[in-house]
């Protein structure tokens, strides 16, 4: 009897936690489908009159189309570049004992870069990029994100590559492959799940970045989705409907990606300390 009662209590607590976690998303979603009149018409957990007007205004006068295009371009290129640079480095660290304790130092350095809060970097980055003429360009963002994300790729891929037995690539090399061919033909396919998880994590953190893009870009020519979302708030009178719609657009791709990697979440977030 008491056991039964405690089980019910557990479910009540979990249900409540789930409600608290999910409801705010619902509130944003519902608001994004309401007409301005209905938004101000008191609490309603369902759009009184379903409208897509907020979304069409978001993609019209509020430039969401450009923000999305910029984000997709910047994130794709930066993640691709950092995956190549980071995986090569991770392979070197996982397979060779290097001089000067480089294996150890390189990993710690990568980890430190990963943990640095962006606010520490943006002020000098702003000054440096303005000197190079890369302010408010997508190229500038790509350069910065590629470099910063490389640290994460090194850290993740080193641990994934270490789990792959050496014998297999040695066999490939006996068959005449060069080291890099063996890496590409044999090791990477085996490391594919880890590589995919690393790529998706990289997409999430790069797409979600706000502060770097906020300081280094200033017009819809280069601004990314999070910055675009924040521009809707700066107005004197807040446009709640488009702002909610912008939040939905900003969240949607990431929620889908996150669900795809939830098995690897703990490893990615604790930087490998907990698997």
């Amino acid at each position, binding site marked *: 009897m008491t056991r039964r009662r405690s089980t019910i209590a557990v479910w009540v*607590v979990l249900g409540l936690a789930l409600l*608290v*976690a*999910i409801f*705010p998303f619902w509130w944003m979603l519902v*608001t994004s489908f309401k007409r301005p009149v209905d*938004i*101000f018409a*008191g609490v309603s957990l369902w759009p009184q009159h379903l409208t897509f007007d907020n979304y069409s205004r978001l993609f019209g006068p509020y430039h969401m189309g450009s923000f999305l295009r910029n984000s997709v371009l910047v994130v794709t290129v930066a993640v691709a570049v950092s995956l190549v*640079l980071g995986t090569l*480095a991770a392979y*070197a660290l996982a397979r*060779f*004992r290097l001089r000067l304790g480089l294996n150890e130092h*390189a990993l*710690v*350095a*990568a980890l430190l870069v990963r*943990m*640095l*809060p*962006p*606010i*520490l*970097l*943006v*002020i*000098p980055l702003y*000054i*440096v990029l303005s000197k190079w003429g890369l302010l408010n360009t997508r190229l500038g963002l790509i*350069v*910065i994100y590629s*470099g910063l994300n*490389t*640290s994460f790729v090194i850290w993740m891929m080193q641990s994934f590559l270490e789990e792959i037995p050496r014998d297999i690539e*040695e066999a490939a*090399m*006996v068959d005449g492959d*060069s080291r890099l061919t063996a890496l590409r033909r044999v090791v990477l396919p085996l490391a594919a799940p880890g590589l995919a998880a690393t790529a998706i994590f990289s997409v999430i953190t790069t797409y*979600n970045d*706000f*502060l770097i893009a906020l300081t280094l870009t200033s017009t819809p020519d280069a601004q990314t*989705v*999070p910055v675009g979302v*924040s521009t809707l708030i700066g107005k004197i009178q*807040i446009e*709640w409907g488009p702002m909610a719609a912008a*939040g939905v657009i*900003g969240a949607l791709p*990431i*929620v889908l990606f*996150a669900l795809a990697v939830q098995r690897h*979440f*703990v490893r990615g*977030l*604790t930087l*490998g*300390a*907990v*698997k």
Partner: protein
Amino acid sequence: MEGGAQAVAGPSGARVSERWARARSSPYLLLLPAGLALAAVAAYPLIYGLRSSFERYRFGRDLGSAGLANYRSILHDHVFWTAVGTTARYVIFAVVIETLLGLGLALLVSRELRFGGIIRVGLILPMTIAPVVVGVIWRLMYASDIGIVNPVFGWLGLHEPNVLANTTSAFIGVVAVDVWEWTPLLFLIILAGLQSLPQEPLEAARIDGAGPVRTFFDHTLPLLMPVLMVAVVLRTIDAIGTFDQIFVLTKGGPGTSTQLISTYAYNTAFLFTQYGRAMAMMVALLVFLLLLMIVAIRLMRRAAARSAA
């Protein structure tokens, strides 16, 4: 091409070791591009920033050396010290609440396995989305005219708080948002830790007649400690750098009630173009963070070693 790297495991056949020997130099070349990238976007800006903390800027132009003037000026800047205090309170409240809630939820879910997958997915959603979107969501929740927090307080017969309009409630409000966003992180890490615990000591304690509370404090918690510490320190480092949600929710206001070091440094640099002063703050912050990061790396290594064993 030829350098001095040594392959870790000597392969068996002679032909293989020849190949291995020929490839010996390549690891340094493989590291080079990544090393250059990290140097360009992290090391260089940090060094540049360190230098600029000793320079005088006006309207964004470098006017030459300022000696220690920037450091002296932040030392006497009470707004800066208020921001330091607010950041400390923000981080302590947020991390403690998140740890307790995360631990509680993880203990519940690890016991109740039916629908565990769905519950886990639902609970982790808040931390996956951009912090800016988190800010937008809570603007919509807190808004006095279109939000839902005020009506809910009203229905409960409580005073409607107007969360972001008053100094105390705004601070509580931004901490609550942090708790909403990041409790899932602590929950997930602790859950993973709990599920990897050895079962024997816990079983033994149960057989010896120890109640669940005793078992938790005598056995589960000590065993969980390495993982828990990693989670707490990583979260603390992250929380100290909080910027996005504050920028979207309050911009540090009302007054200076939610002004954190990050938002104050941002304003100093990009509203008042005093790069030197802002960088002096960031150098001070970096020194403090480096200490925490060293602790973090130690703890992570220990936890990783334990989970490997």
